[in-house]
């Protein structure tokens, strides 16, 4: 037995113990390094030497330093992280919208209710310029509130764009780093034919960080290179080669960024495939929270502006004129149609809102396919209309499309239609003079003071002031009308424009007794006594009435005779014959023959608050969402929808956080460093080292004994 063997054996033990202690030290040093997998020294016996006595051991060999690692757990962690970051990013932005809407002072509902409060105040005191001033300033407040909320949404959109650009930069850095690490791993493997533990950890770490940004899939090549795929199978990293993604303005809407994969054959849009990571979260926030919320705000703006304008135009202002637009005409100006930059035709499309009640919060895509226009509602991916030519009204969605300019359209040309996106931003006040607020009805109806019956006439509603009755002359009706009862069962409607029937003023109503003298004179009196009184038919009051009837006869008959029913009353306008002048007027009660009623412009009727009342009623009128919701309710639904979404995201995020914690824990269970364990290992390998050193020393001593023996 050679003592050299013993030296060799112990030396191998010392070396192995040293390696093991180094590795333990490495573990301890990296105990807090993220993504570090603890390493273990794998020892085995060296090949024994055959001898006459049998096989003699030759010591220990460090076969490999391996990392304790489970591929499945690592990919599990990566996927969970990706989903977690996705929810995190989405939640982070959504909760900001939640915060914006939550603020009871900054929200829309107080502004809406203050606005309508001031309209009610106007109804209380329609001719007061103070009340009118309050309406104007509260309208301005409302418009400011819309602008403020829209600004907040816009700045969130800007923030998402910034985040997208920054994240895209990080993705590109990471993909480059992964490709480089791939290269280093392969080189190290070629040199040592052993796995490059720390490099592999580093690559896992890089891929996981990448997964935080974007959803991805990986495959391992046989040579140890890792390939990374994103989107719809685009290869971000293949071996040593990294590709790039980029954030570019959307083909329709330059204010929104799309993510594209920059490939050899050009850019491929992959936005719609982003279902994980921060980019996915931001994308989801944008399409499921920000766009609908901003569109909803726009829809409310359009609803208020259009219904308020429509009603305002049915009223009369302090200047004795019909009301004009109160708010800007955003039902006409706000809808945006964005042609694709890829369009080959030159058609430009214009969209108008026809019915805010039917309006959705969706955006639309209009495509030209096989010679037909096809309108796709993006919210639910439903084709809502197919048609051959413009203009086209899409009743179901309350919009109307028409050609703005251009003539050519080519297969596959497409347009993005945003009916409501800009509306909140464009919600402005059009009226600046308090006198221009139309609080009064433009119609006045009056029973003649000389009527013998007790019938009454009332305006129930003004429905339309854009017909010739109102439009052909400012500040008056053309024509004014007279309703005259031929007898108690029939009436006719007359044109009163030629010779207006005068109200019998007090001045004309001289004492009839005096008149009798004046008109009849002595001769007549004699005549009466002689003839039995033929002349009495000329008693002045009667005479005057007859004159009036005659003057009415001179007017053009619009319609009549029309049957009258004293039990139910009868609608004068629209007439039985179907003449509709945009006014609804009814006579009720019991008229007598010759009774007349005048219908005229409500000149100077500035204390009339009919239109202010109708405007105030809009507050509680279900004018949106198919007649189910008023403005405040619609806003309330937006608040609750965003609240629900935030709540849902928060719950998902917390659940996902638990899964992530579990995944981290599972990985840590396998790969994490336990310092107590390493301390024990250290003691073990220290002992091993000491023992081997003792063996070495023993071998040395043995050899020394031998040397001493020969020295003699």
């Amino acid at each position, binding site marked *: 037995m050679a003592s050299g063997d013993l030296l060799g054996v112990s030396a191998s033990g010392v070396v192995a113990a040293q390696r093991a202690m180094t590795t333990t030290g490495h573990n301890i040093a990296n105990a807090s390094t993220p993504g570090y997998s603890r390493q273990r020294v794998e020892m085995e016996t060296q090949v024994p030497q055959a001898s006459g006595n049998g096989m003699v051991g030759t010591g220990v060999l460090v076969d490999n330093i391996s990392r304790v690692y489970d591929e499945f757990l690592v990919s599990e962690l990566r996927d969970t992280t990706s989903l977690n970051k996705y929810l995190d990013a989405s939640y982070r932005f959504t909760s900001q919208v939640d915060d914006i809407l939550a603020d009871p002072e900054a929200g829309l509902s107080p502004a809406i209710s203050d606005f309508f409060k001031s309209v009610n105040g106007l109804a*209380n005191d329609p001719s007061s310029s103070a009340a009118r001033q309050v309406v104007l300033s509260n309208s301005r407040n409302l418009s400011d509130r819309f602008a403020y909320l829209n600004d907040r949404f816009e700045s969130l959109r800007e923030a998402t764009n910034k985040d997208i650009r920054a994240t895209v930069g990080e993705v590109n850095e990471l993909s480059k780093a992964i490709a480089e690490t791939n290269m280093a791993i392969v080189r190290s493997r070629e040199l040592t034919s052993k796995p490059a533990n720390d490099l592999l950890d580093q690559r896992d770490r890089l891929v996981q960080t990448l997964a935080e940004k974007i959803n991805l899939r990986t495959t391992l090549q046989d040579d140890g290179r890792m390939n990374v795929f994103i989107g719809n199978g685009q290869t971000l990293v293949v071996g040593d080669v990294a590709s790039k993604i980029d954030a570019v303005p959307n083909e329709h809407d330059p204010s929104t960024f799309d993510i594209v994969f920059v490939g050899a054959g050009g850019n491929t849009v992959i936005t719609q495939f982003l279902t994980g990571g921060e980019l996915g979260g931001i994308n989801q926030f944008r399409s499921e929270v920000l766009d609908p919320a901003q569109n909803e705000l726009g829809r409310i703006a359009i609803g208020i502006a259009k219904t308020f304008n429509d009603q305002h135009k049915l009223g009369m202002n302090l200047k004795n004129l019909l009301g004009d637009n109160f708010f800007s005409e955003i039902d006409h100006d706000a809808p945006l149609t964005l042609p694709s930059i890829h369009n080959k035709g030159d058609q430009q499309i214009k969209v108008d809102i026809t019915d805010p009640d039917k309006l959705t919060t969706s955006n639309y895509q209009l495509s030209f396919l096989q010679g037909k226009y096809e309108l796709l509602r993006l919210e639910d991916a439903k084709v809502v209309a197919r048609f051959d030519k413009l203009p086209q009204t899409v009743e179901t969605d309350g919009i109307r499309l028409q050609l703005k300019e251009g003539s050519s359209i080519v297969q596959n040309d497409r347009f993005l239609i945003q009916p409501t996106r800009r509306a909140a931003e464009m919600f402005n006040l059009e009226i600046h003079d308090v006198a221009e607020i139309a609080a009064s009805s433009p119609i006045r109806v009056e029973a003649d003071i000389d009527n013998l019956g007790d019938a009454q006439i009332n305006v129930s509603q003004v429905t339309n002031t854009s017909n010739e009755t109102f439009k052909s002359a400012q500040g008056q009706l053309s024509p004014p009308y007279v309703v005259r009862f031929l007898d108690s069962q029939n009436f006719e409607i007359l044109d009163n424009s030629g010779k207006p029937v005068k109200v019998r003023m007090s001045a004309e109503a001289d004492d009839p007794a005096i008149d009798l003298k004046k008109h009849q004179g002595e001769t007549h*009196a004699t005549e009466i006594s002689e003839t039995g009184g033929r002349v009495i038919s000329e008693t002045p009051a009667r005479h005057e009435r007859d004159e009036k009837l005659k003057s009415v006869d001179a007017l053009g008959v619009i319609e009549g005779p029309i049957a009258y029913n004293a039990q139910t009353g009868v609608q004068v306008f629209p007439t039985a014959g179907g003449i509709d002048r945009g006014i609804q007027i009814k006579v009720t009660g019991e008229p007598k023959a010759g009774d007349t009623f005048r219908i005229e412009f409500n000149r100077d009727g500035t204390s009339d608050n009919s239109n202010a009342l109708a405007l105030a009623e809009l507050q509680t009128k279900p004018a949106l969402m198919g007649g189910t919701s008023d403005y405040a309710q619609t806003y309330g639904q937006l608040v*609750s929808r965003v609240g629900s979404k935030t*709540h849902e995201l928060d719950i998902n995020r917390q659940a996902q956080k638990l899964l992530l914690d579990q995944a981290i824990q599972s990985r840590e269970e396998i790969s994490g460093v336990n310092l107590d364990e390493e301390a024990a290992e250290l003691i073990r390998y220290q002992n091993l080292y000491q023992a081997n050193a003792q063996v070495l020393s023993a071998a040395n001593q043995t050899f020394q004994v031998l040397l001493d023996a020969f020295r003699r």
Partner: protein
Amino acid sequence: MRISTSQMQQVAINSMLEQQSKLSKVQEQVATGKKISKPSDDPVAASKVVKLNDIIKTADQYQANITSARARLSLEETALADTGNVYHRIRELAIQANNATQTNETRSFIAEESEQLLEELVALANATDSNGEFLFSGNKGKFKPFAKNAAGAYDYHGDDGQRMLQIGPKRQIAINDSGSDVFREIRDGNGTFTILESKLNKGSGVADPGAVSGQYDLGTYAIIFDKKDSIDPNEPTTFSVVDDKGNVILPPGQIFNEGNAIEFQGIHTFFKGQPEPGDFFVVRPSFNQDIFTTLGGFVDALRVGRGSEADMAELNNIVNRVIVAMDVALGKTLEVRANVGARLNALDSQENINESVKVQVRKILSEVEDLDYAQAVSELNLKLTGLQASQKAFTRVQDISLFDYL
């Protein structure tokens, strides 16, 4: 189970963070007194809160409208009450004026007071509210409703409009009555027909304003007095009735007796005094006559110097009509006042309804959004204890390490 050192720390840290975040939530709730601070805390409750607050604000608005309606209606009520007093006084004066002991001079005093009253009435009809809007000019609130024209009569510059205020979700109430309704649409005569004497009458016949018996057909008739033999003073006075088409209703020769009823076509009247042959009276349907004209005529009639029987008969006829006109006008005023009173009552009841709606909604709102302090404070303590426990556990666990023994 194997546990890595960093994981052990991380778990402890995570748990503390979690406890802190819960603590801060409860802390916020206790500080604000509200269960929900953001819609996402409870989306359903949050949308309820928006709606409930809206209902409260709307109810507040209705209450404000009621206050303003009450102010207007109270002003109108006062004006109408004063108007009624004026009518009463004029009626008294008219009865005085009819007295046979009155002389031209005393009648002129009555005329003087009546004129004052007329002016007072015009002032009442032209009353304004606190904003300077005229109470009785309908929707033309900036226009003084009654003004004297060049001919001395009062023109109406308002219209028939009534302003409605919303005082409840489905309830509107009128806050004015037009001057036309209150002061102009007053039927002359007895309200159905009026009997006018001819200015040429020579006798002392004074017509009673009459009453409707049966169905009056809105016809115009003349009652013509005659005598069979105009020379014989003992011959009875007769009368006939014709209509305005010349048809004979009661043929000539009807015997006239002072105070006896004359009835035809639903008209019932009688005469005092003695009409002369050729005297005639016209019966016609009542027309609307504004009260100012009626009173103006009264004042004028009082100022005319009178001596003859016929003159006195004319005065009595006119004054009789004024007395009846005051009755009709008083009736009208009372009717409008009753209506205003009913509206004021409606305001009170709607105010109570609105108030109780507010109370109920506030209660619901409080249930939805207000914090249960007892529960919240105990939760706060629980959370604090939890956090302290986590912190202690962490420091204790971190204290021990095998390296300490190396």
